[in-house]
């Protein structure tokens, strides 16, 4: 049988899950963080494109849970469990959280990249999910693609080429 490989695309402030042989991808991560949570033996993975660190910052009535580090990761884990993942075998890989523009004024909004990374790390620690690999910070945008079969996270950075984590 010929396996048909699909790429599932995740937009900004969005999340989705993937089963082998398909792969999951999100493009143009700047200060946002791409969080991949996976269960290797089940060949199942989820990806969230997190935009903000904390859902308590919201000022709108409707809450998009995929937008915030705290709510997105909880939801992603619960979706993965519903699809057969086991909590003790979950691992994570993260990428993003860059500082795209350098400013002298160090206002909090300008530091959004590092704050997103901190929030993601804390949330994963609270859920006892270890971070196996990460490519965070810096000042370049990233496009990431995760293959649940090999559990490799492919990261493309402008002018710095492609690497697998």
């Amino acid at each position, binding site marked *: 049988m010929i396996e048909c490989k699909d790429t599932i695309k995740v*937009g*900004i*402030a*969005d999340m989705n899950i993937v089963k082998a042989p398909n792969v999951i991808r999100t*493009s*143009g*991560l*700047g*200060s*946002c963080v791409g969080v991949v949570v996976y269960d290797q033996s089940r060949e199942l993975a989820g990806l969230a494109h997190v*935009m*903000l660190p904390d859902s308590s*910052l*919201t*000022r*709108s*009535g*409707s809450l*998009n849970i995929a*937008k915030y580090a705290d709510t997105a990761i909880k939801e992603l884990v619960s979706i993965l469990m519903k699809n057969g993942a086991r909590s003790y075998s979950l691992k994570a890989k993260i990428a993003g959280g*860059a500082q*795209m*523009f*350098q*400013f*002298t*004024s160090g206002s909090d*909004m300008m530091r*959004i990249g590092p704050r997103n990374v901190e929030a993601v790390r804390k949330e994963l620690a609270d859920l006892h999910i270890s971070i196996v690999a990460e490519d965070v910070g810096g*000042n*370049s*945008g*990233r*496009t990431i693609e995760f293959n649940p079969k090999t559990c490799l996270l492919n990261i493309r950075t*402008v*002018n710095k080429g492609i690497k697998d984590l």
Partner: protein
Amino acid sequence: MDFIDKISSLHLDILKEIGNIGAGNAATALSQVLNKKIDMKVPDVRVVSFDEMMDMAGGAENVVAGVFLRIEGEAPGNMFFVLPLEQATSFIQVMIGDESFSFETTPYNEIGLSALQELGNILSGSYLSALSDFTNLSLYPSVPALSIDMFGAIISYGLIELSHVSDYAIVINTSLNEEEEKYKEYVEGHFFLLPDPDSFQTIFKSLGVSHND
């Protein structure tokens, strides 16, 4: 309630006129700097989701030259001047008088980058002073910051403030083009003006229109 629900088509027309006046001035400035004819399109004002926003300049992964300015003052917001690399290269070559400049190799020529940053500064400055004259609001641009990177990574930075309140953005997008036919539709420069959520009310009020009409 989502502030965007209160925006009517009259409001969008006003924002379109703002884009028209601002970018018209910027296009004149660009034309003077480069000594070339510059074409400007009728501004496009839309309420878009963040994902739709990515598609406005060739997709999230498309590599562009982006100049970002934070607008402070009575109507704070974010402003981007985004150029496709081909066009940025040709603008820089004209400005620094060096035909060999390119974005093909890193590190980029510092003088070239500085010229592009200055171009962004001049254009955004003329955009904003026109806007400020029209609305009678005081607006101060920050020092411009330049990034050569994926469009998604650049623009998402300007959406952070907005994303606290909404999943949609009101974007005032004006395209500029060199008059020569050598560029196709997808290679054109863009101005994106993204006022902060609270600024819309201020802008409409300054022009004598209530936000809640």
